[in-house]
């Protein structure tokens, strides 16, 4: 697992929330890694633990949450760091952009102030240097008339423009890793494509690793090098993008693919996965997916599946994986 080329290595990540009904696990035994210059997509239904996973990496979990396992960034365990150590990495070597561009910028500060801020904090630029660099960044993310925008307030910008500003802020210190949590979910379709293209273009230019979180298989198809599929707080399948679309192993992944709208075929019938994601405190016994699974066997109702390696760099957390003939030694996590 000690790969020279990986920026982020998450091993057995678990996150529990302290609630009035007791401890509730939101993420369990999640493992994945991100290489330099690679886009890793984390995909899954709303509530499956994608945001919590990414906030763990940023050290931004709510106070009521407790994380365990290890998150190695550039070889150092982020979970073992002090608040101050991780603050110096945030916005500097690891950056994040969020789902809601409309509310993610501070309404009472100018765009310029907000773009300059990390430059002053991390790169220790003077006000004047930071101003020029901020103008350059706004230009780089495709904002027309950047000098005028510098003086404007967020409410004077459209959602797409605000997300570009967020990207400019995230890229300001040339991070090694960019985490984008549903960056286009709140935007119009055409703007969505522009923002995704921008992220891919910037990734090419800078060679950073990208974790792109989405619930939309269409976005995965357009952007991913590797894919991690999450369900009910667990990673249920991981593969490179081509393999995942060609040869998905986990029934949940297959369900997601069936529910993906087809661009070519207007008459294509969407097939949403029946049933609902169980809540963290109300997990069924056995495999958490079995109540919604067409292929569920008796075993699935009692015994939670291990992670099986079903191909090169391809794992699946499903008992069906055990029967796969190219079975490498199955490893158990969580």
């Amino acid at each position, binding site marked *: 697992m000690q790969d020279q080329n990986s920026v982020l290595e998450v091993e057995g990540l678990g996150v529990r929330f302290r609630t009035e009904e007791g401890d509730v696990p939101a993420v369990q035994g999640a493992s994945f890694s991100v290489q330099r210059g690679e886009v890793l997509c984390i995909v899954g239904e709303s509530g499956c633990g994608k945001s919590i996973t990414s906030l763990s990496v940023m050290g931004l979990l709510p106070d009521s949450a407790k994380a365990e396992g290890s998150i190695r960034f550039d070889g150092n365990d982020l979970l073992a760091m002090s608040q101050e150590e991780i603050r110096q990495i945030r916005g500097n070597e690891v950056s994040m952009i969020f789902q809601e561009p409309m509310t993610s*910028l501070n309404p*009472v500060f100018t765009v310029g102030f907000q773009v300059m801020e990390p430059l002053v904090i991390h790169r220790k630029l003077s006000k004047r240097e930071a101003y020029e660099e901020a103008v350059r960044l706004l230009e780089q993310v495709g904002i027309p008339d950047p000098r005028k925008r510098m003086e404007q307030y967020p409410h004077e910008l459209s959602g797409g423009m605000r997300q570009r500003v967020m990207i400019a802020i995230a890229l300001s210190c040339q991070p090694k890793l960019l985490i984008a949590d549903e960056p286009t979910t709140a935007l119009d379709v055409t703007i969505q494509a522009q923002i995704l293209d921008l992220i891919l273009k910037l990734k090419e230019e800078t060679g950073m690793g990208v974790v792109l979180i989405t619930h939309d298989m269409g976005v995965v198809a357009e952007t991913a090098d590797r894919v991690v599929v999450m369900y009910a707080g667990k990673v249920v399948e991981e593969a490179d993008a081509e393999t995942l679309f060609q040869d998905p192993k986990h029934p949940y992944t297959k369900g997601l693919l069936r529910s993906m709208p087809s661009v070519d075929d207007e008459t294509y019938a969407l097939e949403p996965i029946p049933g609902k994601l169980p809540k963290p405190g109300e997990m069924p016994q056995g495999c958490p997916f079995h109540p919604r699974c067409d292929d569920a066997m008796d075993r699935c109702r009692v015994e939670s599946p291990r992670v099986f390696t079903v191909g090169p760099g391809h794992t699946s957390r499903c008992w069906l994986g055990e029967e796969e003939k190219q079975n490498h030694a199955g490893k158990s996590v969580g």
Partner: protein
Amino acid sequence: MANLIVRRLLQLIPLLLGISFIVFISLHLAPGDPASMIGGPTATKEDLASIREDLGLNDSLFTQYLRYIGGVLQGDLGYSYQTQQSVTEAIMIRFPNTFNLSVASIIVATVIGVGAGIISAIKQNTSLDVLSTVGALAGISIPNFWLGSMLILLFAVYWQWFPVAGITSPPWTMQGIKELALPAITLGTGSAALIARMTRSAVLEVIRQDYIRTARAKGVREKNVILLHCMRNAMIPVITVIGLNFGFLLGGTIITEQVFAINGVGRLLIQAIAARDYTMVQGAVLLIATLFVLVNLLVDILYALVDPRIRYE
């Protein structure tokens, strides 16, 4: 911005006319005859009649009001029925004391209120938060005259750290600060409590906003996350409460000046009411009302400065 100020100043005119009219009417309709107060117990019927004639009390109310307003517009608030002194002069002598007292009080209230509010928000549900909640409740409930008397007993009479009463020195001297301290705390405590409550809920509301998470994600130091990113937003509702309280403080000076024997407009007002000194009461109320309106204008301007989404055009 200049537009806003001019417009609000123009709005002030009908407002103040209305206030002066109401004060004027209500005092004249109240029982009690100023002529007999001026003439004293020995005055004859003829004396009283001539005093009424002199004061113009026999004219219609409306005529009297117009005459009064005509004077006010020239800075002449009339003459005291009781002492024959110029009302403008009597108020101007006392106004600095009242002004210093209310400004000192609002500073005390803002510093304590905002500070306690921030602490109890970021230490939500800890013992510090509970302490501040209980403190605020006490601050709101304790009457000013009682708090003032207790402060005098403890800090002026028993420990003798502060003078017992009166203001004799300008507020920028050490002596002046000492003289203002107890009255300002007395007057500011209730407002401090209200400001603390408002600050706490404003901070709690702002701190869970997405842009605060963004600030942390940028690596902003926690101190600046709170004092810069959070407070710039939380100040918007807090400014309203501070402005309103400044208005209430002006009214509160009446009791506090009485307790601390401060020669201010509030005390003047109480004496004037007791003496049915119509012109004096009108002058003092008009001044307090004007200040109240001016403070509101100031709040609106501060709003526009703090919140870029507000533009008055």
